[in-house]
C-alpha cells in the first residue's frame, strides 16, 4: 500500500513591488532633472535715493559713481561735519586719501585693471567708512550708460556685504566690538549725471 503524503503547500503571496519601483524610479529621475536647474540669487536695489542720518543740518551721504569697469569714485559727506565713532582715526584716513569737492563733500577716485579689482578697492574703503558709521545702511550708486548689467551687479555685490568668512571689526558707541559683514545693503540707483561726477 502506498501512502500518499499529501502536502498542502500554501503559496506564499508576495507583494508585487515592480510597479512601485517603476513609479519611484520615474519620479526620482524627473525630480533630479528639475532639481538640477540653476540656483538663483537676487540683489536688491531701490529707485529711491538713500538718505542718511542728519547731524544739525548736515546729513550722512555716500555715493559711488561707476564710470566704467575700470574707474569709480566715492563721494562722501565730510566726516568733520558729522559724528563718526572715532573722529581722529576717520580724520587720519580721509586726509591721506580724499580731497574736497566743495559743498562739504569729499571724494576719492579709484582705478583698476577690471571690475572685480575695482569693486574690491571700493569695498576696502567702504569697510573703513562703515567702521566709523555703523548705523548707516544707505548708499547711492550712480552708473554710467555703458556699464553692463553684470558689472553693475558685481559692484552692488561688493557694496552690499563682504564675502562669507571675511568679517571686519566694528566698535559701536558703547564700546562693544562686533564682527560685521554688512556694508550698505540699501542701494539707491541712478544714472551718472554731472552733479555726482563733478570734480
Amino acid at each position, binding site marked *: 500500500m502506498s501512502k500518499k503524503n499529501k502536502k498542502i503547500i500554501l503559496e506564499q503571496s508576495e507583494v508585487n513591488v515592480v510597479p512601485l519601483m517603476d513609479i519611484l524610479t520615474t519620479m526620482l529621475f524627473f525630480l533630479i532633472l528639475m532639481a538640477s536647474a540653476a540656483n538663483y*540669487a537676487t540683489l*536688491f536695489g531701490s529707485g529711491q535715493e538713500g538718505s542718511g542720518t542728519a547731524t544739525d543740518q548736515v546729513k550722512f551721504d555716500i555715493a559711488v559713481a561707476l564710470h566704467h569697469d575700470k574707474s569709480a569714485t566715492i563721494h562722501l559727506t565730510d566726516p568733520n561735519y558729522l559724528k563718526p565713532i572715532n573722529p581722529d582715526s576717520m580724520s587720519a584716513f580721509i586726509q591721506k586719501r580724499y580731497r574736497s569737492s566743495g559743498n562739504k563733500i569729499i571724494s576719492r577716485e579709484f582705478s583698476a585693471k577690471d571690475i572685480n579689482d575695482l569693486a574690491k578697492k571700493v569695498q576696502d574703503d567702504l569697510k573703513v567708512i562703515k567702521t566709523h558709521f555703523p548705523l548707516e545702511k544707505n548708499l547711492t550708486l550712480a552708473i554710467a550708460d555703458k556699464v553692463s548689467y553684470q558689472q553693475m551687479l558685481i559692484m552692488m555685490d561688493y557694496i552690499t556685504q563682504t564675502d562669507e568668512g571675511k568679517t571686519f571689526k566694528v566698535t559701536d558707541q558703547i564700546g562693544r566690538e562686533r564682527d560685521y559683514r554688512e556694508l550698505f545693503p540699501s542701494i539707491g540707483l541712478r544714472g551718472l549725471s554731472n552733479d555726482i561726477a563733478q570734480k
Partner: protein
Amino acid sequence: MTLLKNKSKNRLVLQEINITPLMDVLTVLLFFLIKIFTVNTMNIDVPEQLTLPTIGHQAPPQEAITLVITKNQVLIDQKLLAEISNNAIPLKYQSEDRLTLPALSSYLTKEKQKRDQVFGYDGKQTDLPAGKLMIQADRDTNFSILKLLLNSAAISGYTDFQFLGTAKDTN
C-alpha cells in the same frame, strides 16, 4: 527490479535580488527631493536666449512682477513691450523726454491700481509698501536700457527692485 531513476535534475536555485535596500534609498531620495521643492515655492522661468549674470550672495528671490530683458526684446509677464537693437531701445518706443518707456509705465500703473483696489479697503493706500519688480536681464545689457526701464517703473510706484542672477559657485 528496481529501476533507479536517476533523476538528476540540475536544479537551478532561483536567485532573488534583495531590493529592500534599494527601496530604502529611493524612498529617502524621493522625500529629500520633495522637501527641496516645497521649500522653494517660487517658479522662475528664464528664457533660453538670456544669459543671467552671476551674483556672489545668496538672497532668495521674492514674488514680484517680472521684467525680462533679452538681447532683442523687453517683455513683462511675457508680453512684448519694446524691441532692442545694438544694445539700445529705439527712440520710437521711448517717451518724448527720452526718460521713460511709456508702455512699461502704463502697464505698471494699471497693476498698481489693481493692487490699490484690492488692499485699499484695509487701510490707507499710502501705507502700502512700494511695488516690487524682478529684473531678469542678459548680462551684457547696457545700463542705459536699465535706466530707462527703472525710471519708468519708479514713476509708476515700483521702486523695489530685485536683480536676478545665478548664484556663484563658492566652492
